[in-house]
């Protein structure tokens, strides 16, 4: 069995976000980029499934500019077998990305398609579910455990107020949440080896996906700033403020 992991290049989670002065977006010029943390969890899960002998090949795919090759190499260094880049410089709208990915899935025929539950930049949380719809497969979002039994992918999902278990027929789409696993670090020998692993670049236009514009970004602004608070010196002063100033208790 083959697993396909879709990954995104996104801002490094430890970098402070700067909004451009002209309101056109977030300034990514010269900013450190990384594999989106939830995608890293998806890659880790795929590698663990291979180590357990559940799957035999891990293919990673990204949609984006040629710069995303860096993140694909990271995934290869972590243990993926080969990588595909669907190259486009267009704005990455989830439905368009999903359409490119479903074309890739048509070609690759994986039995499991893993995603991060969302990217930490645009925070859409849509692409996996859209792919599941486009290819007509079942989906399990917010996965916290994945296993394979009796020809079904059995997935525990984090839902509001608790957890749920669903069983999906293959091919299935699973989006990964924080508690699924703790990703490993790539070792230096593996980083060297990754440079020799196959990375194929496909021009997005060659996939014949029917993409178009769905949303327009009008502006990006800073969130409203909270006004400065005060220090209180004791519990009784705090209670007094909450009671008499804030009127909350």
């Amino acid at each position, binding site marked *: 069995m083959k697993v396909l992991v879709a990954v995104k290049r996104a801002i490094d989670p430890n970098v402070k976000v700067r*909004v451009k002065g002209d309101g056109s977006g*977030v300034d990514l010029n010269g900013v450190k980029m990384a594999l989106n943390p939830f995608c890293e969890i998806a890659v880790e899960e795929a590698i663990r499934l291979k180590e357990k002998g559940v799957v035999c090949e891990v293919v990673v795919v990204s949609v984006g500019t040629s710069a995303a090759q860096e993140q694909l190499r990271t995934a290869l260094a972590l243990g993926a077998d080969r990588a595909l880049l669907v190259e486009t410089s267009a704005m990455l709208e*989830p*439905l368009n990305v999903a359409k490119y990915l479903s074309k890739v899935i048509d070609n690759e025929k994986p039995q499991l398609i893993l995603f991060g539950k969302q990217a*930490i*930049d645009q*925070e*859409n*949380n*849509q692409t996996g*579910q*859209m*792919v*599941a*719809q*486009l290819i*007509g497969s*079942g*989906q*399990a*979002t*917010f996965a916290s455990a994945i296993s394979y039994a009796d020809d*079904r992918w059995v997935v525990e999902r984090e*839902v*509001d*107020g*608790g*957890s*749920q*278990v*669903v*069983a999906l*027929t293959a091919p*299935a789409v699973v989006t990964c949440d*924080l508690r699924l696993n703790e990703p490993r670090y790539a070792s230096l020998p593996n980083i060297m080896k990754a440079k020799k692993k196959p990375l194929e670049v496909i021009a997005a236009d060659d996939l014949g996906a029917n993409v178009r*514009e*769905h*949303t*327009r*970004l*009008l*502006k*990006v*602004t*800073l*969130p409203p700033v*909270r006004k400065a*608070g*005060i*220090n*209180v*010196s*004791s*519990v009784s002063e*705090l*209670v007094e403020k*909450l009671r008499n100033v*804030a009127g*909350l*208790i």
Partner: protein
Amino acid sequence: MRTLVIAEHTGSQLTAGTLRAITAAIDLGLDTDLLVMGGPEASAVAEHAALTKGLHRVLLAQDEMFEKTLAENVQPLITSLVGDIYTHVMADASSMGRNVLPRVAASLDVGMLSDVIKVVSADTFERPIYAGNAIATVQSIDSVKLLTVRASAFAQASSHQDRCDVIAVDGGQSASTVRFVSEQLTVSERPDLSSARVVVSGGRGMQSKANFALIERVADKLGGAVGASRAAVDAGFAPNDLQVGQTGKIVAPDLYIAAGISGAIQHLAGMSGSKVIVAINQDAEAPIAKVADYMLVADLFEALPALEKAL
């Protein structure tokens, strides 16, 4: 132009998130219908929902296949209802809304906007990006606009109108690609974290699961919910459905008390919309101080019992 809100319910009533999504829908100024899905219990929920102020009609889809609102089962129903009738489809950005709506979007060949915090006009909306460090104003150019809304940004719709019509709608077939196996829901006597008026949260500073009782006692005195930072959840001090933050629950109560929480970006993203924030921390320089209205630098194990006593 007409709006369809996808409801979620507890088996007896609409969730607070749904009531807030209804407010967002009414902000759009269009006729608003509500879709209630579920098993045998759904008809009572629909009858009750029909009293919600501002609703035009309630559509009731009652069928065993909707009991767990699996995306594969509810998508065909929602897609067929949208037809040529609805220009807007909205849902609370809960685990259900986020699970289901993208599937509906793909089936309609339209985009979707997640986590809307403000309705600017019928096609333009604000939503947070980069963990709330920036706010994007986005225009949808599709014929049907699909949105999940961040419930904490909208007030709850009130339940005061003459009953509107409740109309039964048909289900279709359940999907063969997915099967519900089991679920485990946490039962709590305290108010729901996402809609509580007061939230008392503990962080790594609480040091142990047993010490979380101090948080619970203050929460109970205030009639509030208990929350936790990711660090506290990862350390096993609190169950993961209590996590407040970018990857947990987004809350915006009237009063948020953060005890022993340093204020990592991902935690701030989940609670900085609260009206009044109190931080109790030993470190006066902790990032939480930047968003706190009242900062108390103190030992938690003295301050929390003292607070409980003073309330």
